């Protein structure tokens, strides 16, 4: 999102700030969910082999 403020130095309105906060939160949640999914897939794929590692 190319914020108008970046181009003009103009301040964002309160509503625009709220929306930016919501967008940022959505991105953070999305990233968190993706990390969690990759972790889960790794554990599930390794399965019983986790306990049998050589080291």
């Amino acid at each position, binding site marked *: *999102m*190319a*914020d*108008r*403020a970046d*181009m*003009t130095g*103009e301040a*964002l*309105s309160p*509503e*625009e700030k709220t*929306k*930016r906060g*919501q*967008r940022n*939160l*959505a991105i953070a949640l999305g990233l968190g969910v*993706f990390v969690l*999914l*990759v972790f*889960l*897939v*790794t554990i*599930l*794929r390794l399965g019983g082999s986790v306990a049998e590692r050589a080291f």
Partner: protein
Amino acid sequence: MTPVAIKSDTYALAGPRDYIVLLKPRVMSLVIFTALVGMAAAPGGLHPALAAISLLAIAVGAGASGALNMWWDADIDAVMARTASRPIPMRRVPRAEAAALGGFLTALSVALLALAANYLAAGLLAFTIFFYVVIYSMWLKRLTPQNIVIGGAAGALPPVIGWAAVSGTAPLEAWVLFAIIFIWTPPHFWALALFKKGDYARAGIPMMPVVKGARATRRQVFIYALVLVAASVAPFAIGMAGAFYIAAAAVLGAGFVWLAWRVLTAAETDRQPAMRLFRFSMIYLFGIFAALLFERLAGLHG
């Protein structure tokens, strides 16, 4: 940039919901459902959690192709009443962001499916997105009235991807599910195009009713309806479905052919039958796949 132009942009007001709309949630739900049926019908022992993550990856892949389609077709969407309220024509989301989101989610979903399931499923998902965005949206949509006939392959692939995710294979049974959606697509979209003909003509999209006229399209819709009913028998014929399924398919098929007949024989100006067929076509596809799923889960067959 003039102050007036700066004032008129509403990009800074875009919320998460605007980006979710880019993923075409309604199309996504049909993809999730048909892929789920492909998974349930396939033999194989994928861990339930891995199957759920695979299904999510397929859904996100479908969403990615939706975003890429809205990026490419923003000019068309702006002039069609049906799509004018999408985030790009509404100036909520810049075009480039739809492209970025679609491209990013494509990579993410294909990689996640490769990790959770296997390379065959991931490859099929990548091919589906490529087919929908490049072959359909970029190439065929503006070129030929057969656009949605060929492009329908992308919408028909999800059950095959689901099947491949669970079993690592894509045998005839999976392609029977593909065939049902593939043959369902033309009458579904042509029914829509029959009552939205002006929209497509204005946007310069060579849909069948625009190019060949309503009469030829109605005939084609009826022929496809008959072929669709024949295709819906295939799961029963090759032994992957049983009595419950074939009974449901018979009832749904009779409804489809009856409504297609009404479209064929309607008065030239009567748009009602096409609208009814369009609405029923969604119930039809949902019903066919729900019957397969129910039969499988209830242990009525196989």
